[in-house]
């Protein structure tokens, strides 16, 4: 133990933690980061990034399957799943190494180990770091907990890495199963469903709620559902999983749809039923830190009830998105550094993306949520079938839906499904951040021919001025 007292110690090296560390360093704070496993966290190593590499492969497979339409003929298409997986892992490790360089460049001291916080004095906190080399203690004025979350199991079924997969096994397949049951139709479940379906696996999706992608607007969810059904994905909504039996390398899932029980057999099963925050064994109980429904409670600047201890990202609650963690990281560090003019995170302006085929992206309130809030709304809809670029791409299935407050012209929500919508949604994010009204959006020039014209048309449609629909 030395006498150095860091301004900030960040616990966790994911998109919350490493961003916090770099920003702290930029602001002239002395900063250390403790990471147990891999820099970049789940996002970069086992989440966002490697799954995008997989989905790129399945997208190419889909294109090859439909290449005739474009005047090519290709025969004998074979999938080498080991190579697909290998590429995905390479992408992840390349980026993880990049984070290591970034931290080094920003003079962030990185400790490899598992951190536990402890009391020292009122102003100074202790962090015990357990690593294979033993226990190391460091001191800091401020602690940022960015420990993230892990996937949730069900009481009667746990992922075993063989027949019952969690996201990790699901993204490192060594062989393609014949059939797959996916429990949960959130972003993770839908991305795996799309990936495995495109690679020729028989997929069934089980969802307890009425719609798949239950957080999305119903119109969007329906379009995805119809697309999936057309592709041969079996969607079972209003369906709950009762029990799971594993025998002879196959999984029997007992399900109940509207009270009627049935049995589905599949080779593998993926559990995608949400996450639980990593709050255990990090010393929280020694402090006055509140935990509500498994998540650390903070104020709008991410400080816990314990002065000097902050929490960001998945460990503080939803939406469980990397960009939310990174945004909180910056806000939290700037608060610690005493910067003025900070604006707390507005949770209604966090975009969400799902990279299944067709892609889904949204920001703000759904039509249903807006109605529940009694907002007098105006809704605009524009299908990609009316968009020249989408037709030229051969990818014209989808819809852009915009929701405005009829009284004030505020963009309340935007919901998209279709080609590259995950790249388009930022336009609406900026619009919301700058608090534009329909006026600015209607008078913005969108380049032709682009998919983004559909965003413009949707806005125009809300005010009955759409040109191409």
């Amino acid at each position, binding site marked *: 133990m030395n006498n150095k007292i860091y301004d900030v110690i960040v616990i966790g090296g994911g998109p919350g933690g490493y961003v916090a560390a770099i920003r702290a360093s930029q602001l002239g704070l002395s900063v250390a980061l403790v990471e147990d496993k891999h820099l970049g966290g789940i996002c970069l190593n086992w989440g966002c990034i490697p799954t995008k590499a997989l989905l790129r492969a399945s997208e190419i497979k889909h294109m090859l399957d439909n290449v005739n339409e474009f005047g090519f003929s290709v025969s004998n298409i074979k999938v080498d799943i080991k190579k697909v997986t290998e590429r995905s892992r390479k992408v992840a490790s390349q980026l993880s190494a990049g984070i290591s360089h970034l931290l080094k460049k920003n003079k962030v001291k990185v400790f490899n180990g598992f951190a536990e916080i402890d009391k020292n004095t009122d102003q100074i906190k202790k962090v015990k770091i357990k690593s294979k080399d033993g226990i190391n203690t460091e001191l800091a004025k401020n602690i940022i907990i960015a420990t993230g979350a892990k996937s949730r199991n069900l009481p009667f079924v746990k992922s075993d890495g063989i027949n019952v997969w969690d996201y990790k096994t699901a993204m490192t397949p060594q062989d393609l199963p014949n059939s797959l049951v996916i429990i949960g139709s959130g972003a993770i479940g839908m991305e795996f469903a799309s990936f495995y379906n495109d690679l020729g696996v028989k997929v069934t999706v089980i969802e307890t709620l009425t719609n798949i992608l239950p957080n999305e607007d119903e119109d969007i969810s329906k379009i995805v559902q119809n697309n999936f059904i057309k592709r041969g994905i079996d969607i079972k909504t209003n369906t709950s999983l009762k029990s799971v039996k594993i025998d002879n390398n196959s999984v029997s899932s007992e399900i109940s749809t509207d009270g009627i029980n049935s049995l589905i057999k599949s080779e593998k099963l993926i559990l995608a039923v949400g996450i639980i925050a990593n709050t255990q064994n990090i010393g929280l109980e020694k402090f006055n830190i509140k935990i509500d429904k498994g998540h650390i409670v903070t104020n709008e600047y991410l400080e816990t009830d314990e002065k000097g201890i902050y929490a960001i990202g998945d460990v503080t609650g939803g939406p469980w998105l990397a960009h939310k963690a990174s945004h909180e990281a910056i806000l939290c560090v700037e608060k610690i550094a005493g910067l003025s*003019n900070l*604006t707390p995170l507005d949770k209604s302006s966090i975009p969400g993306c799902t990279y299944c085929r067709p892609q889904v992206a949204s920001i703000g309130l759904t039509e249903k949520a807006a109605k529940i809030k009694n907002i007098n709304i105006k809704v605009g809809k524009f299908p990609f079938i009316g968009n020249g670029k989408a037709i030229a791409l051969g990818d014209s299935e989808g819809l852009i839906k915009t929701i405005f407050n009829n009284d004030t012209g505020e963009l309340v929500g935007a919901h998209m499904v279709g080609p590259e919508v995950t790249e388009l949604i930022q336009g609406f994010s900026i619009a919301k951040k700058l*608090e534009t*009204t329909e006026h600015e959006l209607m*008078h913005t020039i969108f380049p032709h021919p682009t998919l983004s014209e559909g965003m413009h048309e949707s806005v125009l449609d809300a005010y009955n001025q759409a040109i191409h629909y």
Partner: protein
Amino acid sequence: MSINILMPALSPTMEEGTLAKWLVKEGDKVNSGDLIAEIETDKATMEVEAVDEGVIGKILVTEGQESIQVNQPIAVLLINGEKLSEIVIDDNIPEEPKPKKNVVNDTNNEENDLPSLSEDELISEKTSFVQKNEVLNTIKSNRLFATPLAKRLAKQRDIDLSLLTGSGPNGRILKIDIENFKEEKKSQVDNIPLSNNNSELIKNSSMRKTIAERLVKSKNEAPHFYLSIDCNIEQLLKARSTINSKSNDEYKISVNDMIIKAASATLLKVPKANASWENENTRYFKNTDISVAVAIDGGLITPIIKNVEFKGLLEISNEMKTLAQKAKEGKLKPEDYIGGSFSISNLGMYGIKEFSAVINPPQGCILAIGVGEQRAIVTNNQISIATMMTVTLSCDHRVVDGAVGAEYLSKFKEFIENPSLMLL
């Protein structure tokens, strides 16, 4: 290094201004935030603050100098103890400091009212960064940054954006600031002590607000004109005393009752005055429903005597008493005071000689009744004494023209001076 203090752009459209007054002189020490000058633009006079601290080395424009271009140096500030002789003064106007004209979109008027972020462009790109910042800082207090949504909400809620402090980047006013402001404002009103030694604050009742709203609407929308005439009421008073002498205390007809009857009888003769403006149409009433202004606690109200043309003086008198009583007790029903085709307001009992009343919308006319008093009058070259009453008709020129109003008054005078004609 010395700093040129530049002519600030105090509004987005400002291109030049007048230096109205220097608040400092050469050799004065100034601190950041000190007021140094008053600048007059086409819109207003505003004060300019010093951005940096230092000593005013040289004043480059004289008080009262007009047409000073934005960004033209107006003074030199010496900093870090340097002397004027050490510096070279360049009081030339920078080559292209003129603000770019703002392109204003016709369809979006609200944009015109307030400067928006794009006005950063106002500051010439050729101005050095330091100068740019100076100008920005100098005029900070006069420029408003607000998001489009905040601007629209402010407009909808009639909030003056300049009263707000923005919580967004660079003090930009956001939606949340508008929402919070409303609450602040409300709580401020609640916090104002209701009374102090010099004044008393009474919350406006909804009646007060309705009266205000209707009168403002009337004065804003109805082009009023006024016609006055003197009436000799000797005959009227005689008739009244005859009628009342037979009452055995069962009734007492007032002059006002007789005026109501006369107003109605006149409307039948001049139906064009019994009208109201309804934008696309003008409504001519067949009934003579006379609204009579009654003063009540905290305001006034105009109960209606309907179909006066079918009613005798006794009935009018009784009805008026009942309505006035109900009005004072606050017991009038909406149908008792909503509607009416013509109004009468009588302030004669206060000794008011004559006055002009505000039209009771959507009616076309209101007749203001002055006091009945003995005046010297001249008839046939003879001065004599008679009881006279001056009445003034306020007309909404959209429905009642001068000739119609005049005809009404002359007929009214005829009825008042020859009350027996009302029997016809």
